[in-house]
């Protein structure tokens, strides 16, 4: 208050504090406004974070399934994180077809071995979500069209996937996603 009265009285008087000529009031002003600013920004953390997946959603984020009962040539649809998951046991012919293709010539170069687990080269686990715009491709259930390459076919915009779930023809940019998973025993798989 002493500062205001003195400056109001004679306009030219500038009250300084410290040898570098910084006014104490300026310092307090900047410090106070900065503290409020930092506090305001910190407040955004909970306001933004609350929209992320909640604890109950994250608790459902891994799926366990038994692949032992799936016969060669057969596929099952499971649910992983509220999205379809294709689990397919390839026949020897399908494995051969997949391996016969030169991976480097593909849009998204990957070999079948890179897309399966060692010792389980015939178990192909992919998301049942077309990498184009997210439709569910056909080919997992019996009697469905498997596309020109014998794997999966997406009816929305005509993407063809081969027996390793790799994109071969159509608009999809990448192969069907292989989720993170591991074999917890010879037949049981934990996805996620």
């Amino acid at each position, binding site marked *: 208050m002493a500062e205001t009265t003195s400056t*109001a009285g004679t306009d030219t008087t500038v009250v300084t504090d410290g040898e570098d000529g910084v006014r104490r009031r300026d310092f307090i002003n900047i410090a*106070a406004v900065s503290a*409020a600013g930092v506090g305001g920004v910190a407040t955004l*953390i*909970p*306001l933004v*974070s*609350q*929209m*992320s997946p*909640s*604890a*109950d*959603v994250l608790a459902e984020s891994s799926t366990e399934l038994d692949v032992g009962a799936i016969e060669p040539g057969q596929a099952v649809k499971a649910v992983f994180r509220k999205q379809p998951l294709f689990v397919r046991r390839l026949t020897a012919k399908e494995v051969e077809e997949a391996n016969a293709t030169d991976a480097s010539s593909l849009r998204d170069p990957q070999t079948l071995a890179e897309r399966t687990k060692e010792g389980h080269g015939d178990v192909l686990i992919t998301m049942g979500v077309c990498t184009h715009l997210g439709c569910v491709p056909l080919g997992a259930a019996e009697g469905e069209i498997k596309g020109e390459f014998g794997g999966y076919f997406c009816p929305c915009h005509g993407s063809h996937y081969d027996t390793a779930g790799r994109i071969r023809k159509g608009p999809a940019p990448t192969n069907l996603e292989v989720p993170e998973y591991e074999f917890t025993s010879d037949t049981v798989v934990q996805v996620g």
Partner: protein
Amino acid sequence: MSFPWAQQYTPTNGLMRYFDEKLPLPRLVYNAVGAGYPVPRNLNYLWNFGVLAGFCLVIQIVTGIILAMHYAANAEVAFATTEHIMRNVNYGWLMRYAHANGASFFFAVIYLHIFRGFYYSSYKAPREMIWLLGVVIFLLLMATGFLGYVLPWGQMSFWGAKVITGLFGAIPIVGEPLQVWLLGGFAPDNAALNRFFSLHFLLPFVTAGVIILHIWALHIPGSSNPTGVEIKTESDTVPFHPYYTAKDGFGLGVFLLIYFAMVFFLPNYLGHPDNYIEANPLSTPAHIVPEWYFWPFYAILRAFTADFFFIPAKLMGVLAMFSAILIWFILPWLDKSPVRSGNYRPLFRIFFWILMFDMAVLFYLGGAPAEEPFVMFSQLATAYYFLHFLVIIPIVSMVEKPKPLPYSITEAVLGSDKEAVLGENASVAK
């Protein structure tokens, strides 16, 4: 706005000048809460509570919109989704505690804002319209607070809804059908919960609209001040910014400290444990009470235990409870004293504090069980409440001899020396 010496908005930045030409929104803000609004230089901290109330509304709207993202207004799952918010949603506990305690702090701030108005007679001409709009805002807040308390669908929610809608059942002839219509059933259920949610979402925005009118009306005569003497010259005022933005900012900091102390360390102190039990239409909690901010009016409701001539006790209680607030609408015309500030009204000031004591008693009794001796005290306190407004205020304003008022705000601040006043006037006016 209305003072000729108010500073004009003159943007130096080219972009702001362009913007201001097309849409004078920066100008509006500048004239409302910026340097363009001259405010009495002598406002004390009781003048902080309007800004604090506005801030509370912002807290409530932000946290409320977030809660609505995670809550489902369905009687089957409402309680479960509330617990989902508490346990699963990231910072959900913070959002809900901030919202629940935010309501309490909103009311605390509003009560102090209203009592400030009582003491300094802020309701008097030329500010009657501000006061009337303020009472409307208070009623909207009470409705919103009640509707929101029902949403978690706990025991207190359910029985609160039942009791409050039951008030309408007291109205003769149309009461029962009206109550059934309000609830969309014979007891609170899914239909009631859904419409309460819808209205609880709507009313804060209606309130925001009325607040804009409240502030608009305020800016016509300008803010009142602790002396109650109107602004005469420029030396009576300082620009809102930076003087009152700083003062309000400091008050806001203190408010936030207390508010977050409650949110983080006593989040359920103002709540009721029974509301963590899911609504059960077949079992009433032993002691049902509304939230603390309704207690004074709840005490008035329960004070009427015997029929009053031909009016049944139940209806009388309801009428008294609503009248206790509606009476504020005619307060500007009950208090005829030309002096505004309680500082210069010795007799009025005594009765102001007696009213505060009476409301504190009603507040205590509203939270107490409905048994003797509390009921008798409620009756006495209720009688005094109405006596204060309808009899004491008009009589005091007629017989009281007020103390001499200062000539101006400047004189009140700088002392009675006329030369000093004129000297400063001369130097500031240049």
